[in-house]
């Protein structure tokens, strides 16, 4: 008789779904919030959730961190009974973390520059100023450009 709910499937996949919940929270902050610093924080949440998804793919049940035991002189003493988790996702995510901080710092520098030019870091206010500037340009140069610039 087949069970109505496949518990083994749910237990095996629930961690992916939890990562997706975190990921979507980050995406919501990026899309719905107008403050630029908060958008960067949302981007960070999204990023870290993707890292967790990658790392969880490399996890093996009963496995341990991929570091071989060494004796007192530093020689590796391999023990065939130990299961190691997959080290490849760890390496890829190490690179991704550093690239992530590079993009974050560039984004934050852009925010400082935007604040200098517009005197605000709220998306709505920046758009309002942009529209005003376009309207003024139209008033001044619109006729010369043949209607609306």
């Amino acid at each position, binding site marked *: 008789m087949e069970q109505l709910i496949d518990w*083994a499937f749910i237990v*095996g*996949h629930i961690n992916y779904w*939890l990562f*997706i919940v*975190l990921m*979507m*929270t980050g*995406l*919501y902050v990026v899309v*719905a919030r*107008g*403050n630029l*610093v*908060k958008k*960067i*924080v949302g981007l*960070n*949440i999204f990023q*870290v959730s993707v890292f*967790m998804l990658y*790392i969880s793919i*490399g*996890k*093996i*049940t*009963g*496995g341990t*961190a*991929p*570091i*071989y035991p*060494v004796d007192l002189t530093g020689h*590796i003493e391999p023990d065939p009974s130990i*299961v*190691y988790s*997959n*080290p*490849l996702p760890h*390496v*890829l*995510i*190490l*690179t991704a*973390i*550093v*690239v992530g*901080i*590079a993009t974050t*710092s*560039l984004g934050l*520098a852009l*925010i*400082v*520059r935007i*604040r*200098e030019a517009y005197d*605000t*870091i*709220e998306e709505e206010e920046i758009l309002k100023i942009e529209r005003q500037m376009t309207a003024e340009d139209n008033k001044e140069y619109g006729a010369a450009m043949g209607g609306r610039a």
Partner: protein
Amino acid sequence: MIGTFVDIVLFAMLVLTAFAIVKTDRLFAVVMLSGVFSLLSALLFVALDAVDVAFTEAAVGAGISTVLMLGTIALTSRTEKKSSISSPLPFIVVLITGVALVYGTIDMPNFGDAAAPAQQHVAPEYLKGSLEDVEIPNVVTTILASYRGYDTLGETAVVFTAGIGVLLLLSGLGRRRKDEDEEDA
């Protein structure tokens, strides 16, 4: 069993922190909560056997990025202004994306499955090679510096480019401010 319990507690805390970030409008609190989020995720990385990643996340995510964000809010503003328009569109978009992603996970192998495709290809080779060719106990170090050294080179190029970008964006910040003050006076 204990491992699962730890995972669930960490997840609950991560989700609570993320929701608190959505709700809070004081940016100082938001930045601090983002540091908390990074530290909690570092703990989760330890639970998932990725000790090197946990170390880097704690240093970079909770350390450097918090400092950078604090610097930014010191130069800009401390509070988020409430949006005048509240549209359900972002929530719908996020919901649809989430459902699509969950649909995508259905074909994925179970969590912790030793027979999963990701565990079959080059990973056993790297584990063996670290023991026989490179003779470094930490396999992550072996792959990072030896097998995938070009990745690290590319990473350095990215960090260098970002550093130049930040310098170009921020250089002359103080000078421009002084010019403006003189114009105002």
